[in-house]
């Protein structure tokens, strides 16, 4: 099985990739292991340089020796969870056999914050300066899990050290879905773009119809794609960089921004700042790392960090099973429905559902670049022939009917006009009108779109120590159900013998998927159509873990429900209100059980859970001191909270030190 994966990860025609595949990272055959990197311990050379970054910290005096650089213990691992709010940024430091700063390698997973996070950008700026200091300005591997702002926005923010090249990215790991020229990835990218544009039009339409609350809700769902305030505009980025190839990228992204529709017949569009797309972040990272240092990860692949022999990284997802990825709905028998992972028929169909009604622009004659169904005969967009349709506006009250011109749109007959005026347009019947009901499906489209992107998350399991024996750190990005379930399909490790169930069982640190939402941490394998029974899976197989939830409860609530909280939501929100919370309460409780209360979050240190009102409930167990202390219930693990603060009583990060236990 491992062999067949090999072919998939190196598609024909990309011969130039050989260097990155070996030295960067990924190694299958022991023979390929040699460290071809010319300066295997080059990190040490960065020591002591670029120290000015430390200015960004607040209150670092509490640390007695205050080493800005993060040093991993010999053969040990340090995991730092930054707490900028709803958004991911993790720093992992791996210690080699020699120990010391020279033998420490740095892996950074994501760097972003959600659009609506209060003070998110300011906090993230401070976090990024800490990254510079801690790594000495050199990251061995940067992992960008998926294209959501809460994971990547940092790379586009004003003054970020990546664009300013104060941090060097040695290797960049991306999911295969980011690869251009990969047929499947290209297809997904195209579909996603279409759906996105449809949705934005729907949101505008909803505003035009006088329901801004609902529109902001729909947009709130795709908030993960919206850029926070601190993100620069194209022009600001252009002004801040000198690198020509970077400039080219930014200009290209700017040119591809949708043209604001402002023709006749288009009433309003909400002014949205022309922020770059999140895709630009990935492009910039690729440029900064260099294409030859970029590895596209395929499920089942084994990655290694050069110099740290004891560390292996298994690529779990995103899945690449054609049967599941491709839109293929013609198979199911009556008892079975294929569950798609990515843009399902339902999603794309929804795109169609929305598009025809959102084509006021089409009527106005403008070229409709955003319209995914522009190849459809125009008549097929309408349920009936054009001659049978009477424009809604013409059927409302008119003092007198104009003379019918055969070329003009039709006016209703006297009888129909009477019917509509008496029973539909009359204010008495407003409660029965359905003008906006069809747009409710936009919410579904937004949710689908969001899940689809989450499902493209690069999901990694860091295994450290002898293969198949030691502890596992699980970083699933924001992978949702489809992605999680696909991990069953391959075996991992050099000999391809490790099952994902085994990885779950050995997990000691779990970065909770999607900020603790209800469907991004699995508990159950539903079995298969062949009749296999449902079995425990995911979190249910983990035990005695530390759980990390990069979440801000208040922000998540605001993003999903708008300002008014759940009560202002639509029907779907009302019926599912409990499932929309982050963290989702049942999951949160399961995590507390599995982690024996060792649940670390990015928001308030004291839980806004029912703790105050329920004295019997145990508080979450979190690091209490700036100094390393033993983690309750776990051997060979210590943790601390940072002395640096991101606000009153809000440590910038939590840090966990793991010592290798199996020699």
């Amino acid at each position, binding site marked *: 099985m491992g062999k067949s994966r090999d072919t998939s990860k190196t598609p024909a025609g990309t011969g130039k990739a050989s260097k990155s595949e070996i030295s960067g990272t990924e190694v299958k055959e022991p023979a390929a292991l040699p460290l071809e990197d010319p300066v295997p311990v080059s990190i040490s050379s960065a020591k002591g340089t670029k120290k000015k970054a430390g200015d960004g910290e607040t209150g670092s005096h509490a640390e007695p020796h205050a080493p800005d650089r993060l040093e991993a213990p010999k053969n040990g691992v340090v995991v730092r969870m930054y707490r900028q709010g709803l958004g991911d940024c993790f720093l992992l430091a791996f210690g080699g056999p020699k120990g010391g700063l020279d033998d420490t390698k740095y892996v950074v997973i994501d760097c972003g914050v959600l659009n609506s996070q209060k003070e998110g950008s300011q906090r993230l700026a401070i976090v990024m300066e800490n990254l510079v200091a801690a790594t000495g300005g050199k990251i061995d591997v940067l992992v960008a899990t998926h294209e959501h702002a809460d994971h990547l926005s940092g790379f586009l923010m004003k003054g970020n050290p990546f664009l300013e090249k104060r941090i060097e990215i040695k290797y960049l790991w991306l999911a295969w879905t980011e690869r251009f020229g990969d047929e499947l990835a290209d297809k997904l990218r195209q579909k996603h773009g279409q759906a996105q544009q449809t949705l934005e039009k729907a949101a505008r339409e909803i505003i035009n119809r006088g329901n801004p609350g609902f529109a902001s809700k729909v947009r709130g769902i795709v908030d993960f794609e919206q850029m926070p305030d601190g993100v620069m505009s194209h022009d600001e980025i252009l002004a801040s960089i000198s690198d020509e190839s970077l400039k080219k990228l930014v200009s290209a992204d700017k040119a591809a921004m949708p043209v604001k529709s402002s023709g006749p017949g288009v009433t309003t569009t909400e002014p949205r700042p022309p922020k770059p797309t999140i895709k630009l972040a990935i492009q910039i990272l690729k440029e900064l790392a260099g294409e030859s240092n970029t590895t596209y990860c395929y499920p089942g692949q084994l990655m290694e960090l050069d110099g740290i022999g004891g560390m292996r990284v298994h690529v779990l997802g995103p899945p690449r099973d054609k049967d599941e990825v491709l839109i293929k709905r013609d198979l199911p028998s009556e008892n079975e429905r294929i569950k798609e992972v990515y843009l399902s028929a339902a999603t794309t169909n929804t795109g*169609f559902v929305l598009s025809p009604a959102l084509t006021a622009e089409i009527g106005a004659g403008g070229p409709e670049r955003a319209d995914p169904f522009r190849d459809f005969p125009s008549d097929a967009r309408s349920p009936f022939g054009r001659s049978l349709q009477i424009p809604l506006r013409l059927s409302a009250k008119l003092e007198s009917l104009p003379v019918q011109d055969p070329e003009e749109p039709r006016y209703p007959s006297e009888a129909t006009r009477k019917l509509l005026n008496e029973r539909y347009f009359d204010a008495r019947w407003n409660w029965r009108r359905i003008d906006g009901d069809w747009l409710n499906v936009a919410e579904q489209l937004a949710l689908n779109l969001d899940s689809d992107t989450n499902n493209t998350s690069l999901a990694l399991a860091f295994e450290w120590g002898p293969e198949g024996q030691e502890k596992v750190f699980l970083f699933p990005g924001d992978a949702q159900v489809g992605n999680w379930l696909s991990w069953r399909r391959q075996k991992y490790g050099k000999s391809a013998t490790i099952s994902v169930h085994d990885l779950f069982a050995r997990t000691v640190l779990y970065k909770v998927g999607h900020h603790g939402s209800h469907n991004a941490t699995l508990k159950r394998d539903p079995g298969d159509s062949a009749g296999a029974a449902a079995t425990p899976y995911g979190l249910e197989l983990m035990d005695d873990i530390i759980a990390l939830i990069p979440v801000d409860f208040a922000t998540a609530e605001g993003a999903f429900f708008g300002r008014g909280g759940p009560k202002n939501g639509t029907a779907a929100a009302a019926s599912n209100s409990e499932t929309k919370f982050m963290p989702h309460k049942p999951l949160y409780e399961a995590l507390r059980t599995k982690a024996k209360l060792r649940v670390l979050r990015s928001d308030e240190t004291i839980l806004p*859970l029912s703790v105050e009102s329920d004295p019997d409930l145990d508080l979450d167990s979190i690091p209490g001191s700036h100094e390393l202390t033993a983690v309750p219930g776990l051997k060979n693990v210590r943790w601390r909270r940072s002395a640096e603060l991101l606000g009153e009583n809000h440590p910038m990060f939590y840090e966990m030190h793991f010592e290798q236990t199996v020699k």
Partner: protein
Amino acid sequence: MSPQPLPPPYRRLQVFALDPSADVQMDTASLSRATLEIPWENLKPGPVGNYIEVIDVDPASDCVYEAVDLQDPMLLARDGYAPSTGNPQFHQQMVYAVAMKTIANFEEVLGRRIQWAERQKDEQGEFLPRATAATTEVDDPRYVQRLRIYPHALREQNAYYSPVKKSLLFGYFNATTTDPRDELPGGIVFTCLSHDVVAHETTHAILDGMHRRLLEATNSDTLAFHEGFADIIAIFQHFTLPGLLLDQIQKTRGDLRTNNLLAKLASQFARATGQGDALRNAIGRFSKRGRQESPDPTEIHRTTEPHARGAILVAAVFDAFLKIYEHRIVDLRRIATGGTGILPQGEIHPDLARRLAEEAIKASQRVLNICIRALDYLPPVDVNYGDYLRALITADTEINPADPRRYRLAFVEAFRNRGIYPMDVRAMGEDSLRWRSLEQDAWKVIELFMPPPAVLRTMAAAYDSDGSISAGLTWFTRPDQIQNSEQLIGMADRFLAKFWKSAQKPADSDSEQKKRYRRYRTEQEFAIFFHTWIMASVQLTGKKPAAEANQIKKVINWNLGLNFSVDLEVHAVRPTIRLRPDGRSKVELLVLLTQSVKRDLQDETGKPVKDFAGDTIPVLFRGGCTLLIDPDTGRINYAISKRLDDPSVGGEQYPARLKRQMAYQRAAGLSGTQALEPFAFVHRHVEETEGY
């Protein structure tokens, strides 16, 4: 001058028999169209009739369509427009025809006019004022005259009854299949042209009008019951479609356990969305050889999604039908096969097919009849499948007391095989399943709380009498002002005088619409009387010595499920009419009483569950009873109750039923909030139970 002709009994309207997909296949084309006979009424363009108004606005396409005028002589003379997917006026005609047919089926079985659920709250969630003396059907804020139907409301694979808008919303969509053998890929599919979808949604609306608390999800069966019942009606209406039954009997050689059109629901919808050849199939699952697989009694425990769980109920009822049908045709098969009962290869004789079809119709009528009638024997709240089984058995016993061929066992067996059984019976025998009658001792106590027989008789008779609407509750006394039983009797006397002596004589010219409204108002007045009577009686009980009062409370709580310290809602006071075996009609008075209390949501250990803000989460716990009263004697024949425990006489604050409800609501993630549109024909969200 020629005499004025009487209106015809029926209006004939053409429809697609099942849906348009059958119309484009050679083997089904001959029966893909049907002409339905709809009870005659004068229609305005729309159509707008007594029960229904079709409004064809299509905001998704930013347009409206001309309204069909079915009174047009050109259409009257040819049974309306011919079936066509491309003619919106035909769509309006078809939704009207199928919805009216569904309504007619209910009225025929129930023996009374149906009413739509009243509109209780406005858009802001405030309660609307009740009708006053001067209110008419046009300006009554709560009365819903007509169910509204939007044939082209949505652009998605969906259709639903909206309890808020009192409307049916139908969607249309592009087929997502890639297999042109199913549907034209990308072609437009209209849910309003599917007989099954229209009948299903109409049934939701009718059921909501009969039992408004069935919308509340208090156990895993409530919403599933709504769905399953709507499917049952849709499927049994297949049997009334001319030609379809005979054709299917021919094709299956009389074996209806093989896959056939009668049992298939929403074929086109399923094909167009790539979900096989039926969205739901009443026969259940099929083996490789195309015959019914035996049911799995554990499936029900694994199935929570309302439509899927509803399908189990449908399968059970359909199985009962098949058992009855098969029993009825055993002799025919023997006659046709010279005693072997084994049919030879090839087609069966047309005469045999016709005879089999006759038996199938009889069996289906009995089953449909019982299924609808059983609604009157359901408790008013927290219904589960076991209750429905008991209601079915009770209803059938009332109509067919003898049951010489033991057809009731067909139901018992079909339900048992699917793991459906009531929680509170000692055995699955017919006798145990039937709701119990009140015991004599209990009746002696309960009698004190019931209006006198004369009042009940009046109610049963006046409901359908056109003259009975009062102007201003002239008999009314506030319950707290009634000090003794004489005053109570006085109120009853005024009530009787009002309805017997001073009833207005209706004008002949009054429209059917006015008559329906009068019925609605009359029922409201009865409800007020019942409420006043019982609450006043409760108050009088309070004046008795404590020990005696407590004893009375206990008996009432035990037998009627009512808690004396909680206010009462009277949901319905309407007659149910049926034919007795001796050919005379029998009238009973159906009264629905409910109550509710608020409790705090608890976890399984009994500790209160808090939300993130640290507040407790309220749970609405409802109880109540359905009374079937014999108006001649005033006696209660059945009191079908869900008890609201009365802690003041030893009941628990958190009884077992509430614990079950809380367990369900915790698992379903419901925190007392009610979905606004619970009846989407298919759920937009795919449940992902693998997560948390």
